[in-house]
């Protein structure tokens, strides 16, 4: 069973190849190839999962070496697949959610002239993402890492005719590449200090050779963190994600919500040994997560574009995962990663259904009353929103977010503040997502619905809605008396979090608080955006309200800052230097010699007497010199 592992990433790649080579001649068949390859891959993934769970390999680790990639001296990263419970979870999320989104795209993208190209890119993405999560060494992981970045670029700029899409795509690639470069330097550092890039050996070696808290793990962790920040759109590299919404909606759902952006979380979880040994950096992870979740939740509150709300929401939710990673709650982070993948993909797909239903309308203030016109989309979107807002008991988000908040509370370092940030973020989350729900689906209809979702859109929506509910039941808090299956499943990968001090009562209390907070958020949203919208409008009209709104709307001015501090100067310099300042040196030499050439040729007057005079002058001077030098 497990030996089928290589097929899981290979199938999407095969699909990509087929589509890239023959896609333009396939027509509608392209969707079948694209979806089919990912679907098969999902089936194989399930088979592998069944095999992994029913008969676990020794040490719950299965590796499959395909071929030697590079072998130079001691540097020999192979094409090595590595399966443990963590990567298994990731593989399942990627393939299953990926398959559902492919299915959705088959209908969503039907009218587009780049139909086969879309599926080619999507397949390439799924393949790269699978390589990323299955990589046995960091170099192969880096291959997948860059591969998904590439697909993100390709798909954000999928509608290439609009220059702004291209700009967003380039921005996404470049910003993440900044992080990737930090990661690459991290790989150099790790290899030269630990002598290997094989993740498992590396972790063992790190534990053996490095002392916790010393500079080595701190540097390594900081560099890895750099990569994770870029990919997962965390402060200060978060600016690309809102713009990335220029891509087709399924892309936003798959890449910019469910899978790729959470790769940073996966990476940190994967290298948890190093982060554990680097408390300073780990704390920085928590702080960055907390700051990001607050900042982007605030930004989400004031957006007009339905997808941008969700984009900021994604940044915010990944902030939660970082918070969890920062406090050492590895399995909580992965748990939230999984549930987030379900509900955020659901939200995006729901939004996509709405957008295509309204013929491409993105502005939420032009929507309204869609509850009756698009009931399926409404109910599914509502399910996702509840899960995101972490409404108590029935939603997956409640369990995963609760676990994170509880872990933050327990953190020995600034635990209360991290928890407070998380709970404040939870309030904001619930406000902004229900603001969206109330504005879009309630009230008076403003735009006519032109298209109802067909079965290939409805099935993924319903499936994801189902997962958004039940996905949380695999890991319930202790006071429910149910086993925390998910955390136990990941136990072989992660060190057990320090759980000693707190009691189940504390957990119960905290869960209650967060439940109250999320319900309060729903009410606030109801009050300000449905029941009495004039209050919110009034508030937005005051001077500070307007300024704050604008500031939040622009994502806290990061884009402005980067534009002024980095992009413009670079562009200016490149333009100004178009003709290469260094070349001026040589142009000067050439000009000087040309100048002398003209000067000398002027002396050639053609007048014999002038020549004679100069000759005589030269002779006289020579004689004078000879006389004087005697």
């Amino acid at each position: 069973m497990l030996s089928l592992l290589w097929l899981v990433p290979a199938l999407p790649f095969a699909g990509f190849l087929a589509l890239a080579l023959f896609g333009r001649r396939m027509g509608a068949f392209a969707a079948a190839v694209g979806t089919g390859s990912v679907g098969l891959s999902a089936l194989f993934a399930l088979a592998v999962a069944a095999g992994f769970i029913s008969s676990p390999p020794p040490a719950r680790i299965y590796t499959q070496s395909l071929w030697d990639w590079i072998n130079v001296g001691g540097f020999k990263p192979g094409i090595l697949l590595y399966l443990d419970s963590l990567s298994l979870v990731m593989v399942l999320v990627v393939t299953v959610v990926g398959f559902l989104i492919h299915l959705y795209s088959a209908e969503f993208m039907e009218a587009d002239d780049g139909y086969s190209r879309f599926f080619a890119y999507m397949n390439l993405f799924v393949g790269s993402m699978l390589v990323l999560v299955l990589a046995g060494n960091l170099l192969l992981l880096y291959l997948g890492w860059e591969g998904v970045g590439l697909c993100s670029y390709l798909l954000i700029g999928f509608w290439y005719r609009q220059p702004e899409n291209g700009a967003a795509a380039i921005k996404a690639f470049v910003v993440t590449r900044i992080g990737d470069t930090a990661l690459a330097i991290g790989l150099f550092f790790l290899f030269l200090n630990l002598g290997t890039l094989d993740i498992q050996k590396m972790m063992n070696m790190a534990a053996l050779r490095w002392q916790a808290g010393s500079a080595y793990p701190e540097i390594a962790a900081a560099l890895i963190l750099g990569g994770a920040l870029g990919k997962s759109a965390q402060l200060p590299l978060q600016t690309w994600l809102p713009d990335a919404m220029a891509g087709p909606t399924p892309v936003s759902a798959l890449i910019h919500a469910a899978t790729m952006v959470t790769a940073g979380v996966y990476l940190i979880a994967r290298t948890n040994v190093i982060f554990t040994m680097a408390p300073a950096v780990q704390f920085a992870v928590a702080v960055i997560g907390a700051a990001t979740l607050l900042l982007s939740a605030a930004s989400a509150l004031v957006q007009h574009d339905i997808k941008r709300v969700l984009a900021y929401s994604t940044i915010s939710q990944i902030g939660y995962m970082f918070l969890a990673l920062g406090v050492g709650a590895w399995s909580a982070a992965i748990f939230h990663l999984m549930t987030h993948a379900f509900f955020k993909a659901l939200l995006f797909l729901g939004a996509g259904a709405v957008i295509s239903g309204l013929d491409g309308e993105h502005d939420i203030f032009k929507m309204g009353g869609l509850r009756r016109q698009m009931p399926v989309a409404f109910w599914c979107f509502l399910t996702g929103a509840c899960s995101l807002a972490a409404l108590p008991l029935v939603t997956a988000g409640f369990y995963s977010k609760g676990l994170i908040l509880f872990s933050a509370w327990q953190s020995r370092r600034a635990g209360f503040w991290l928890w407070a940030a998380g709970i404040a973020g939870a309030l904001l989350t619930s406000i902004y997502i229900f603001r969206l729900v109330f504005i879009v689906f309630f009230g008076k209809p403003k735009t006519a619905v032109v298209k109802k979702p067909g079965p290939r859109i409805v099935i993924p929506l319903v499936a994801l809605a189902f997962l958004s509910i039940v996905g949380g039941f695999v890991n319930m808090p202790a006071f429910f008396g149910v086993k925390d299956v998910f955390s136990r499943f990941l136990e072989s990968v992660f060190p057990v979090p320090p759980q000693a001090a707190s009691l189940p009562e504390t957990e119960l209390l905290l869960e209650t608080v967060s439940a109250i907070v999320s319900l309060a958020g729903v009410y606030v949203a109801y009050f300000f955006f449905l029941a009495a919208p004039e209050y919110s409008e009034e508030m937005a009209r005051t001077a500070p309200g307007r300024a704050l709104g604008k500031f939040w709307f622009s994502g806290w001015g990061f884009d402005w800052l980067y534009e002024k501090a980095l992009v413009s100067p670079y562009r200016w310099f490149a333009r100004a230097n178009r003709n290469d300042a260094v070349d001026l040196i040589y142009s000067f030499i050439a000009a000087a010699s040309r100048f002398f050439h003209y000067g000398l040729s002027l002396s050639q007057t053609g007048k014999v007497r002038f020549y004679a005079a100069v000759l005589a002058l030269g002779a006289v001077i020579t004689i004078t010199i000879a006389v004087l030098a005697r």
Partner: protein
Amino acid sequence: MEGVFYMAAAVAVISTALVIVQMNVVHALLYLILSLLSAAVIFVTLGAPFVAALEVIIYAGAIMILFVFVIMMLNLGTQSAGMERQWMRAGMWAGPAVLALLLLADVIYMLAVSPRVSGYAAKAAGPREVGIALFGPYLIGVELASVLLLAGLVGSFHLGRSVRQRLPEEGEAGGGEGD
């Protein structure tokens, strides 16, 4: 003998100066011949009668005759003197004057600093010695001089002969260039 030298020198200087300020070519040529003759006299005072004879025969005779022929062939009219006058302007003398002064300074300096060796060799070299030297150590020079003369002969013959055939062609090229 001293008197002869200084007189001849004065004649040479004056006639030479007149050569270069004359407006009429024929007059200038006559003064030049005078200058050459006075030079011949000086040669005699310097114990070189053979060379003086050559000077008179070849320089003042043969070479100057060439000039005369050419002047005749050119058949310059009276307007040429006026043109010469027009060409001569006061400012033109400044540059050559500066050069002359520089060279004068050089000469004075040289004469001032160089050790004075008074007196002359007991016996001046006669034609016999000159002949021996010419066909002894300077044989190569003589041969080269003959080659040079031959080249001069051929050259002047060539130039003189092809004048008529080349003229229209050259004129065309000149007109076409417009430079």
